[in-house]
């Protein structure tokens, strides 16, 4: 039993099931991120934890106590909304203490709690202002202050950074992470931004169409995606997917495909499992992240297994720190992440290096990863 348990939770609107049998157990102090494309049910799940939406079937428990049907204000949770949802008619100070006032906390106590939070978030100078007089970042802080002041068991964040501009978003991301490290509270955080998910979380639940596709640490999700959806959703640029033919030849197993000019490319599979071996003669999808597909000098020096092959450079996209180079293998467009000063130029034939330790394989029909 965890700190926050979501036990076979489902949600239907009329005849449409939007969440199917979700099971997640969150430990105390964990930072769980629910990530997925819009309409995947992540916000619905968060609202169910908050008590703003009913649970159609299943259970949600906080510290072992059943939360189904418990009013949002009695769950000891606090929520930060995407629009911040600051009360427009109240000052910042009133916004922060409104929840305490509703819970009949004495005035002196409210005051000291507010000062404490204001200091923590550095909003002491804004207490007398109305929300309309604040900038986006300041509103964000006040919204967090309103959540913090109640010292809840669980913080819920509903896409809190999506209304900020790019730079502020990165700053606030770091602040949220700092806050989590300092306070150690349990956080459930919803976002559609996979970079936010990777950077903030201790664990990620990738969701799609009402199903949890994979639940794991950022590293597990990134390195060993459970299926094609997770593989392509997480990571930017997304994982390269190359159709390859598996050829088990005694001890060695090869993945065969072709390069941009039709030559056969034979990549030795690194530590092939029995499932992949049994697919011999069949076509599977090889997944390789752009950073595992590099120029031959740029390959990870710690990797024990690098395969090389030549192919034509399509387009080069300098991104400052790296240069992304496109080519094609097996008819599929691939992106390779090269050093910024790579000499690859469009139309040239250069050697690409596959870090086979990082390669993963998927069944092209079911989309599930082959172990």
């Amino acid at each position: 039993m965890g700190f926050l348990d979501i036990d076979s939770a489902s949600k239907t609107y009329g005849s449409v099931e939007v969440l199917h049998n979700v099971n997640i157990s969150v430990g105390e102090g964990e930072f769980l991120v629910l990530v997925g494309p819009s309409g995947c049910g992540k916000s619905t799940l968060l609202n169910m934890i908050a008590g703003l939406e009913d649970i159609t079937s299943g259970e949600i428990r906080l510290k072992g106590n059943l939360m189904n049907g418990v009013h949002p204000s009695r769950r000891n949770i606090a929520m930060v909304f995407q629009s911040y949802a600051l009360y427009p008619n109240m000052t910042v100070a009133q916004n922060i203490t409104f929840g305490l006032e509703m819970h009949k906390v004495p005035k002196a106590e409210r005051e000291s709690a507010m000062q404490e939070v204001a200091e923590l978030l550095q909003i002491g100078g804004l207490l007398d202002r109305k929300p309309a007089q604040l900038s986006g970042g300041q509103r964000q802080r006040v919204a967090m202050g309103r959540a913090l002041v109640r010292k809840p068991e669980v913080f819920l964040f509903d896409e809190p950074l999506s209304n900020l501009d790019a730079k502020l978003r990165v700053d606030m991301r770091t602040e949220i992470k700092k806050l989590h490290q300092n306070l150690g509270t349990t956080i459930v955080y919803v976002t559609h931004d996979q970079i936010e998910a990777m950077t903030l979380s201790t664990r990620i639940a990738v969701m799609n169409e009402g199903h949890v596709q994979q639940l794991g640490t950022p590293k597990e999700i990134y390195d060993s995606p459970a299926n094609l959806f997770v593989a392509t959703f997480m990571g930017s640029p997304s994982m390269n997917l190359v159709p390859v033919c598996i050829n088990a030849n005694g001890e060695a197993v090869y993945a065969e495909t072709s390069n941009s000019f039709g030559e056969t490319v034979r990549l030795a599979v690194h530590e092939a499992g029995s499932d992949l071996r049994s697919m011999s003669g069949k076509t599977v999808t090889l997944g390789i992240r752009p950073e595992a597909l590099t120029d031959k000098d740029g390959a990870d020096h710690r990797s024990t297994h690098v395969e090389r092959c030549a192919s034509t450079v399509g387009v080069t996209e300098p991104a400052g720190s790296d240069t992304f180079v496109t080519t094609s293998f097996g008819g599929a467009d691939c992106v390779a992440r090269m050093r910024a000063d790579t000499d690859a130029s469009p139309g040239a034939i250069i050697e690409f290096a596959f870090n086979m330790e990082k390669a993963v394989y998927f069944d092209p029909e079911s989309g599930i990863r082959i172990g």
Partner: protein
Amino acid sequence: MAAMQQESAIRTSRAARVLIYLLLLLFAFFYLLPLFVMGVNSVKPLSEITGGNMMALPEIWTLEPWRKAWSEAQVGVQATGLKPYFWNSIKMVVPAVFISTILGALNGYVLTKWRFRGDTILFGLMLFACFIPFQIVLIPMARMLGIFGLAGTTWGLVLVHVVYGIGFTTLYFRNYYAAFPTELVRAAQIDGAGFFQIFWRIMLPSSGPIIVVSVIWQFTNIWNDFLFGASFADFSSQPMTVALNNLVQSSTGVKEYNVHFAGAILAALPTLLVYVVAGRFFVRGLMAGSVKG
């Protein structure tokens, strides 16, 4: 070339502008003429009206007709002037406007933030109230007032006007609150505020513009209503409009046109005042529901 074109464009628009202003002045004159006639004739002695012309300025200025209309004219059995009826109207309008506005706000709040099955149908049915002609409900309403024991009382009129106004006020507040972020209500719920706390502390303080619209609309309609006042009030509760009619229609004695004019202006003053004070919020509030601020 371009500059020349621009110049000629300005010139034509200037000509058009003059025409527009002339037309506007003409219309303004046309609309203000009756007010002028009322004003001018309410401050001259009766002899000047009967003997002279309606448009002329008074030779002898007098406020006597106003005093007479307010406190002396024969309206009912007693020669009380319009004063008691003016207070009847106030006693009817203030509670009716207040209650219908609050109820409309509550309805709008429930219809947008506490959605339930069939809420749009219910709202559609409430909108019907805006389209039902007054005459249709006269007899059933008289029966209802009789059953409630409110026939002939000011509170009976308050009830009638509240019932009739709820359709409009609900429409205003529902559309206003539809644009009000639901996340605020959810945040307040998590903060522990209940149904009425959210209403009083979050929704109403943010409803200024639409409250003004509702108050102006209701005040004007209820103050100017004649039919319900004439049908459901007795002598002790007749509103201003009915009293004015009785004053003007009285068939005994000389017709004191100057007193009638003064009385008519007195009857129209409160609505004018409401428009002057709150009018600029009216348009702003009407637009607030449709355009995001």
